[in-house]
């Protein structure tokens, strides 16, 4: 499903963010990516959705080798994965409904499909009753739920999240995790970079720890393992 083979990433300024990553993630897995700040977690995530191009090595996602994909085909690859960020990345001028529908509009889905799918995912993240509200009328947790809804509305087999609970208070973070658990239970692969020790240690899943751009630990039922 997701495979990285000897992946290296050196930024143009000379920073070596990834130094030979080898990893295999099975379909339907739930994986935490942990490690100290500056370890290379975000770079790891960015290489997966091709925001960054590895300097060396290959990344195979859903059977597609990203290194061999032409620039024009990148949008096709991105349609098979949902991406979620710490800062939600919602469009302030659009309502909740419109923000989610946006993901389908830009890939030219039919209005009928858009309506069905948007209501379906808003139901899943429990925001059906706030569909007409604007992002600034919502709490942080609700905003993140909108962004999750947007990431899965296209029914991607993989969801990638970079510190999705980083901006949220602990209680809200748990609500968000419930949604990720639900998404994963429906068969979607989830890869999540996180700093949240409580969550990693409570909802135990596979843990990949990165330090200095290398995988230093990879455990099937791991714990957070850091003291922050």
């Amino acid at each position: 499903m997701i495979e990285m083979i000897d992946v290296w990433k050196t930024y143009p300024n000379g920073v070596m963010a990834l130094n030979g990553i080898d990893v295999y993630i099975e379909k339907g897995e739930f994986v935490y990516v942990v490690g100290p700040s500056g370890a290379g977690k975000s770079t790891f995530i960015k290489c997966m959705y091709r925001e960054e191009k590895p300097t060396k090595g290959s990344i195979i996602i859903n059977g597609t080798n990203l290194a061999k994909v032409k620039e024009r085909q990148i949008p096709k690859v991105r349609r098979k994965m949902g991406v979620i960020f710490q800062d939600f990345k919602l469009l302030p001028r659009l309502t909740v409904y419109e923000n989610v529908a946006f993901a389908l509009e830009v890939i030219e889905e039919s209005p009928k499909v858009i309506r069905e799918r948007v209501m379906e995912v808003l139901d899943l993240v429990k925001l059906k009753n706030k569909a007409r509200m604007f992002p600034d009328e919502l709490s942080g947790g609700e905003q993140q739920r909108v962004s999750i809804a947007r990431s899965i509305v296209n029914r991607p087999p993989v969801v990638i999240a970079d510190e999705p609970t980083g901006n949220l208070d602990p209680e809200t973070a748990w609500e968000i995790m419930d949604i990720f658990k639900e998404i994963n239970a429906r068969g979607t692969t989830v890869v999540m970079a996180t700093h949240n020790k409580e969550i990693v240690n409570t909802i135990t899943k596979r843990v990949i720890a990165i330090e200095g751009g290398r995988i230093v630990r990879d455990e099937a039922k791991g714990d957070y393992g850091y003291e922050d």
Partner: protein
Amino acid sequence: MKIRTFKRHFVEAFKSMGRNGWMSFASISAVTVTLLLVSVFLAILLNINFIASQIEDDVQIRAYIERTEKPESYDVYQKDLEKLDKVKSVKYQSKEEGLDELIESLGDEGEVFSSLKEENPLRDAFIIYTDKPQDTAVVAKEVEKFKFVNKVEYGKGTVEKLFKVTDAARNVGIFLVLGLVFTAMFLISNTIKLTIVTRRREIEIMKLVGATNGFIRWPFFIEGFALGVFGAFLPIIVIAVGYQAVFDIVNQKLGTVFIELLPVTPLIPQLALLMLLIGGVIGVWGSLTSVRKFLKI
């Protein structure tokens, strides 16, 4: 592309134009000034060319033949002249024909000359037409070199001055217009850049959810095109109204004898179409140059 997608791009383009109202206004104004000058210059140039073609009949070279030459050799001389570079045709005109033409062209006053028929003061002549009116001076010099030629006449003053004026006007016009076109393009490209920056987040999200570059580019493309085309509206109105007025004045006051201007109907619609085209091209070009840089992520 699906129609609803196109509609979406269209709405996006116009929303963004409204959001950056002042920059849009500046771009449209730049295009307007540019096209105003272009259209006025074009209208003037086309008319000068048109007038030049009207007096082209006067743009002939008259080479008078030495009286000592024998008419038997005229055929050979005519061939020699026809062989010259840039010469279209050569016609022989005897002195009798020449006099008749002169008398006729002078009308009543010409009667006086009728008495001269016995002692014709004119000479036999060749009338030479060049490929292009601009060539008359050069060809006239060549013709002068022939021994059998006594004197060469052509509408020296008027013709040469006319072409000097058209050439100068054309050069100045092209220079000015090119400068203005680039200014307009620069302004439009900056406007589009601004709209891209304000929509940066949107573009980022579009890319994340798998929108193609083409899809992202369309609204900017439409916006640039619209800015350019809007800029063409005022110049079209001005040139249409202005030209009609000038045309009427010239036709009434100066009469029909001297000059005639190009008729309004084919000229103005053609100019209007051209202005729309130039405006559109400037706009699209301006927008594409700024979008290209931006989408390379």
